[in-house]
């Protein structure tokens, strides 16, 4: 039988030994509170926390949207876990008083796709490349999510979406949504333009006041996608992370960020810095004001450095 003293002993062990997870992690109330904000008539945004994935936020860090249409609810991205997806599915039906007709996944990153399990099979759509990316990397993403978000992930399994989304217009009766297949943040990023409200849902091609992530980024292609997005008139931009704003601030900030980190990383590499030194470089003030600036800069250095090391140094081996 466990006495109170034993319990206290365990608690203090957990605090002293960093490889034992904090005690409070097991006491967190594991229920997502989705706060829908109506950003246009019949369009609701559930904003993600501007944080990394943690045991406290359960991975609910990405934006998710619900649109009311004559054909039923349309959902953009499904969140980080089965539990989130279930809350979202319920909410979509409550908001629209209709069943969910279609779910779109903007790209294959785990904070956007692991709620898919809660939706009827066949309704979840993505580009063929996103479906393939999840086949290749989905199980690995699930492992990372279970580790980072813990018990919030309970029961979550990988769902491969229907590979049917491609550039073109989808007509939901009273709402036409134009799909724009792009890339750069990942090999395949789907932006959605709602012709009825004029809202542009960019997925993670745009981050606002939250540092962009780069584990699968192609910076040059990303820059081109941002230029293309910027050329399309819209009433507001709904980024993958950050607030919906009727300006192109998100596009500009994302472009400035990826250009700045790319140039800082290239410069550090050319000066002969190793990774440990490059991740510690000072960031300019404007970058520091963006949430998770240091964290994402550090990750980006680690994403970009190995390729530079493989490509840019002279070959020096000689016949043995």
């Amino acid at each position, binding site marked *: 039988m466990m006495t109170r003293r034993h319990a206290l002993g365990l608690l203090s062990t957990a605090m002293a030994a960093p490889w034992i997870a904090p005690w409070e992690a097991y006491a967190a109330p594991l229920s997502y509170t989705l706060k829908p904000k109506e950003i246009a008539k019949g369009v609701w945004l559930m904003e993600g926390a501007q944080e990394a994935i943690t045991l406290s936020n359960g991975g609910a860090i990405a934006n998710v949207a619900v649109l009311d249409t004559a054909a039923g609810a349309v959902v953009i991205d499904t969140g980080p876990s089965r539990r989130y997806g279930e809350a979202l599915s319920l909410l979509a039906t409550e908001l629209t008083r209709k069943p969910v007709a279609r779910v779109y996944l903007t790209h294959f990153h785990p904070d956007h796709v692991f709620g898919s399990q809660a939706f009827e099979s066949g309704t979840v759509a993505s580009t063929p490349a996103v479906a393939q990316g999840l086949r290749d990397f989905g199980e690995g993403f699930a492992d990372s999510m279970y580790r980072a978000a813990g018990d919030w992930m309970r029961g979550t399994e990988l769902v491969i979406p229907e590979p049917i989304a491609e550039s073109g217009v989808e007509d939901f009766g009273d709402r036409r949504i134009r799909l724009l297949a792009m890339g750069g943040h990942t090999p395949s990023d789907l932006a959605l333009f709602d012709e009825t409200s004029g809202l542009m849902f960019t997925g993670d091609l745009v981050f606002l006041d939250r540092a962009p992530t780069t584990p699968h980024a192609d910076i040059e292609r990303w820059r081109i996608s941002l230029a293309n997005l910027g050329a399309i008139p819209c009433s507001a931009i709904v980024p993958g992370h950050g607030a919906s704003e009727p300006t192109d601030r998100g596009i500009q900030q994302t472009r400035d960020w990826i250009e700045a980190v790319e140039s800082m990383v290239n410069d550090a590499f050319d*000066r002969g810095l*190793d*990774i440990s*030194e490059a991740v*510690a470089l000072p960031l300019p003030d404007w970058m520091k004001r963006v949430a998770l600036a240091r964290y994402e800069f*550090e990750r980006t250095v*680690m994403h970009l450095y190995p390729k530079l090391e*493989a490509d840019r*140094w002279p070959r020096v081996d*000689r016949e043995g």
Partner: protein
Amino acid sequence: MRALLGATLLLASVSLARAAPQADPLASPMWNDMVERILDGGPVVFDDRVKVVVPSVVEDQAQVPVTADARALEGVETLVVFADLNPIQHVLTLNPAKAAAYVSFRMKVEQGTPIRAAARTADGVWRVGGVYLDAAGGGCSAPAAAREKSDWHLSLGETNGKIWQAVDGSARVRFRIRHPMDTGLTRDGIPAYYIERLVLSHADGTPLASLDMFEPVSEDPTLTVQVRLPGRDAAVDIEGRDTNGLVYKSRILASQDQSEAASSAGDPTP
């Protein structure tokens, strides 16, 4: 008399280290074992001047960037890097002949673990620094990426590198050697196969540094060391040997344009 006094002081510091072992600041269950097996039983003191730098976030457990830096100490003869909770703890040993007590590289971790650097100075004392690295598992038991390609052997031993010379005569050497660095612990059953020794010397034969490496060093070892070169038109020869006896030779030239780049950049250390 002075020698005797020095010897007495040395004995005093050694016996002090032996008599009153400090508690491990990282509270590792493996610490005493590490001292016996990797640090020859000590004497050991924890010293903040020996630094280990790891990232605050680890995404790829097979490629964790680590820097061991004991440049704040004088006369380091050996710098050892190890990870208490790895299935294979000893990562590498640097013997700086004409080099700084500094090495940056990438390693595999099988789980969260203390990463330590131990610098042995002339008095025979190991001075130890370290950090706890939080990481998911699997870096040592995942097969090398090269093993997914049937033609991996064609690029075996390919080496790329560059030298940055500073005005004070020190030079930073960064290089990458293609090698699977198999741990022998992977699901595919491939036995351990890794580069076990690297010797860096000046083109005239002067030894600069040597490295003993073990299974936890990442695939395609990518290293940064700082050596002292005798002249500006210098070259560094690297000779490596793997556990199958294959020898890898390369020469990195400190060419004029690289020198200019380095002098305009100044000391590359931020």
